[in-house]
């Protein structure tokens, strides 16, 4: 099977990368990649554009950080606490927003996320603009020392893969098929007797939970959580990562996250403030020339090459 070979190659690549690239950078990338994948489950496979995902990422990062630092929970429980926070926020947001359509849905999620931002700003435990500092990394299961970055990398990689596999399973399950049918034609899904709102809500909560997982991982990796993690621009960033990589593709969000995180991390050193301008140019070029994102476009080329006579209908 084609996906399986891809997937294996992908695994090998991820396992070898920390010996080539800097592991901390890779961990940050994996966190953002999982965040983008979780977002893509909603946008790419259900057709819902949320503009409030920063609340799940940042909210759970703050709770995970608080759990590890103040409640002194071990790392696995802290991450669980963060993920639960993401899930609960997802339930709350979902119940209020899920009946809204299109831009109204995006705006109401944005509004709710702004409430979370306001809370994070006012709540004393987040440290306001100083952020939550020096979050400890306890030993995993009490024995594995995570202060070593490569060890930590494999731990984060395991979590990432777990999240990624959940998404993979969902997409290829009957539930995922229903989600896709909602994306394609909501009215038809309704007329087929599906309770569309419930499916959408479930997808929304799963997406929020996985974003929460990503946020908790991020808190443990950087050992600092700041308000920028709950700021609306973070919600914008995840939309961009997904679109650049390719919505509705399995690997697209990962590629998109890699592009944006590396630009943030590496280009600043050489290009200084030109980075944001270059990002802007890339977004515009992306929309004008490779609208399906890097991965989406590649996939289409591959399909075209394989099936030269059917290429016309595959574009629709």
């Amino acid at each position, binding site marked *: 099977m084609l996906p399986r070979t891809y997937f294996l190659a992908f695994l090998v690549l991820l396992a070898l990368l920390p010996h080539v690239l800097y592991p901390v950078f890779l961990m940050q990338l994996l966190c953002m990649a999982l965040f983008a994948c979780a977002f893509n489950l909603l946008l790419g496979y259900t057709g819902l554009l949320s503009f409030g995902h920063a609340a799940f990422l940042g909210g759970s990062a703050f709770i995970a950080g608080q759990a590890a630092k103040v409640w002194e929970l071990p790392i696995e429980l802290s991450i669980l606490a963060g993920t639960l926070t993401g899930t609960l926020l997802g339930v709350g947001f979902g119940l209020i927003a899920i009946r809204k359509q299109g831009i109204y849905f995006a705006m109401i999620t944005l509004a709710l996320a702004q409430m979370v931002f306001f809370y994070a700003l006012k709540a004393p435990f987040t440290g306001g603009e100083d952020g939550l500092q020096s979050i400890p990394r306890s030993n995993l299961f009490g024995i594995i020392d995570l202060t070593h970055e490569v060890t930590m990398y494999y731990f984060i990689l395991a979590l990432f893969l777990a999240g990624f596999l959940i998404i993979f399973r969902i997409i290829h399950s009957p539930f995922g098929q229903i989600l896709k049918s909602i994306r394609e034609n909501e009215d038809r899904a309704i007329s087929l007797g599906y309770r569309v709102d419930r499916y959408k809500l479930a997808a929304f909560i799963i997406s929020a939970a996985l974003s929460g997982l990503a946020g908790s991982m991020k808190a443990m990796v*950087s050992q600092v959580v700041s308000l920028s993690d709950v700021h609306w621009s973070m919600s914008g960033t995840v939309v961009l990562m997904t679109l650049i990589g390719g919505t509705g593709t399995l690997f697209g969000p990962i590629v998109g996250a890699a592009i944006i995180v590396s630009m943030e991390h590496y280009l*600043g*050193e050489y290009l200084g*403030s030109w980075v944001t301008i270059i990002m802007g140019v890339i977004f515009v070029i992306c929309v004008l020339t490779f609208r399906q994102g890097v991965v989406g476009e590649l996939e289409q080329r591959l399909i075209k090459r394989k099936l030269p006579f059917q290429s016309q209908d595959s574009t629709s």
Partner: protein
Amino acid sequence: MHIKSLAGVTLASLLTCTTALAAGISDDKVVIGMPSDFSGIYADLTGKGSAIAAQMAIDEFGGKVLGKPIELLTGDHHLKADVAVGITREWLDRKGLDAVVDIAASSAALAVTKLMTERGKITINNAAGTTRLTGKDCSALSFHWAYDTFALANGVAKAMTLEGNDTWFFITADYAFGYSMEADAKQVIEANGGKVIGSVRHPLSGSDFSSYLLQAQASGAKVIGAANAGSDLRNTIKQAKEFGITSSGQKLTGMIFFIDDARAIGVKEAAGLSVLVGYYWNRNDESRAFAKRFEEKANKKPNTIHAGVYSATLHYLRAIESAGTDDGQAVAEHMRKLKIDDFFAINGFIREDGRMVHDMFLVKIKPANEAESDWDVFEVVRTLPGNEAYRPLSESECALVKN
């Protein structure tokens, strides 16, 4: 043969060890990093200007210390603490980073300082003003150079209260630095017989401040203290003039105020405002000489932060020279021991909490018709000795301070 090779290895490692001690420079170079804001709201106050200042210090030191080259790394942290930590960690692990200077935004500054201290390396904070850096979060390896929010709030509030402005109303940014500035100012106002009769807290990055100004006006306080910064402060000042508040006899004062702010508001609108600065380019021949060299490269005059970065970098390099090593612990000791002697740190010395105490200057913004050039905006009213400006050690929360 086995034993022989082992002995060879030991001998070799011993030799490298001794040479390392003699030259004392890890990885044969000294690497100074600057994770800062190059594109966000602090980009003018630090950013490229700070990078230029640090490079000037390196060049004027001769580009080498103890015979080894000095390298400067810069990175844009986009005001995100996690990005700042990521960049710094990579420099530590991959590029042999020895020290960090500057760092804008308090969340990033606190996080990077923590990381550097863990790794036994030096941090010299400049752009971030939070007193946590020399208070609760102080360390033997980190320093705070150019200014802090306590000095600014304290200096301005004291000077104004002593002039008889004894009732205050605060317009405070709804952020930790806003609260701490308001609290610091309040303390000194009350100690000098004044009173704070009200305050209002506003969200960060607003554009309209007239509502708060009106509340301040209604309070009847003699002084309106703006405990906010950047564009918030500039808008507050600009709109206070527009709403006739400053012309009706109430005074307005800002705290975190730089020369760039004066230029951005327009000297005409800001005239009469008193603020505290750590450096003003047109104060004496030495400060003017630095400003001239800086301007040739940066195309603008330096502010307190830029001059502070220069001074801090230079002092760090001198300490390496005097310590004979770039080992963090040793350099930190020599930084504390060594006299700081440059145009910036007037009567400067480093306290046990890492605070570089130096004279600050109370300045007033000149009326536009008295300015000789575009950048001639301040008139130095008086010098505030370092010991009066900074938080006394007796009130310190720093664990290194033995009370």
